[in-house]
């Protein structure tokens, strides 16, 4: 849930607080929207990457295969003295 919120907030910020550009030429609305689609695809891919292991484990569970363990965090490897 936290991640969804983060993605939505980031997208809203990216769209709302657009910084001024130097470009003097009209980029064409088609070109801008297409790049917006690319940005969305990039966002989706980043999200998939974020949830990839969970998705993989979900599929494995459905197929009755053993799930992969979450990699241990470095902090866990090096417990505080």
């Amino acid at each position, binding site marked *: 849930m936290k991640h969804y919120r983060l993605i939505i907030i980031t997208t809203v910020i990216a*769209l709302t607080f657009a910084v001024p550009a130097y470009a003097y*030429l009209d*980029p*064409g609305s088609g070109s801008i929207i*297409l790049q917006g689609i690319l*940005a969305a695809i990039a966002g989706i891919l980043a999200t998939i990457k974020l949830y990839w292991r969970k998705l993989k484990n979900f599929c494995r569970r459905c197929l009755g295969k053993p799930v992969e363990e979450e990699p241990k965090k470095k902090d866990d490897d090096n417990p505080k003295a």
Partner: protein
Amino acid sequence: MIILKRDPSSFHDPAGYVFFQENRVFRYINQSIKDEFNTVDQSGCLQKFITEHKLVDYTILSDSQKNQLSPEAALILEHPKLPFISYAYEWSFNMLQSAALLHLELHLASLEQNITMIDSTSFNIQFLGNQPCFIDHLSFRPYIENDIWWGYQSFCQQFLNPLLLQAYCKVDFQPWLKGGFATIPLTDLYEILPWHKKFNWRVFFHLGLQTKLQHKSSKKQSPATKKIRLPKSALINLLKSMHTWVKSITPHYQHIYEWQDYENLHLYSELAISEKKAFVAEFCQATNPICLWDLGCNQGEFSKTALENTAKYVIGFDIDPATIDKALLFSKKYQLNFLPLVMNFANPSPALGWNNKERKSLSERNNADSLLALALIHHLRIQNNVPLSEIINYLFSIASTGVIEFVPKTDPKVQLMLKFRQDIFMDYDYNNFIKLIQEKAAIIKTTSLTNTERKLIWYKTYD
């Protein structure tokens, strides 16, 4: 106060403009963009590109030098003067392709230094000999986080579409670029592409989707489009994907001009070719051309002879784009100071753009001090009906000295041209040709080529 002579084409970007002063080239930079230019300058990417011969050199004038020219300017740069300005509608396929690749490579390399490029126009690239070189230093600006590729549509229209027109439709792009001011609109190209090419995912994405979105959004303009941002990684991927595609496109030609392979047709004997080369060599040794125009250069064999015999720079012109592609390879193979361009002398490049001053006509860009017009004038006279006196006057207007080849009506090539038409060319005869030349020029030397009735004439105008 000095009045700066702004280049008529340098008005698009309000950040600055190019002006000329006493045959020197300067770039005026506005106060509004000073900090941004300094950031770009200090990033070191411009210097890197200059070292790699990908960008024209520049020097920032000292404050006192700048104030002498214009105290209002934030900065003034000085650039070396280029030998010749050519336009995309005069380039061959490989030239436009290498210019497109250079543009993308510069953009990708500058992004590594957190610098971006704000436009994509073929007018920002010039050829120095056979190599493309970027000329607009104000195209580089500091990268703003998540900024889009502003020149995306422009790149498609000025670089990608002409290449696809040649590759997928077998149509020469040069006349289209000339008529459309170096641009082929997305909708125009997408309409005429063969149907099966529209299934190519790259065509679908870059052309089809962009065209459809353009149509839809033009009906209902949303202010949200102005706020769309693109992550840097996605921008880099877009540029890389475009680079891969552009690099993979290969030209296809519908027709082969009759004289495209004339060197292979054995119209000349080995002896005649060596006589021709010897004549050109003697002419160049005597005249030391700084810039020689080779009209109807074919692959550039005689341009090479000229360069080997004191000529400093040769610009070759040929009507056939495929031949100019060969000439470019020839120029690269022998590392010649030779710029080949596509040109139909029956319809040379006109002045184009705003007020017909933005892009200069071929005549306005004439920098030749000598010329070669080998196996050219019979095409102009017999195929294009241009009177012989007009042809001679035109050649004299290009250069005060040169070598012209006269191909008589008895020549097999001219016989072929006359095969299906009436001979209405009463003025086209060697004696009349000589008489017309002598009205305005001295004939320095003539020679007859062995085993042909072709003749070479070395002229020098009286004035």
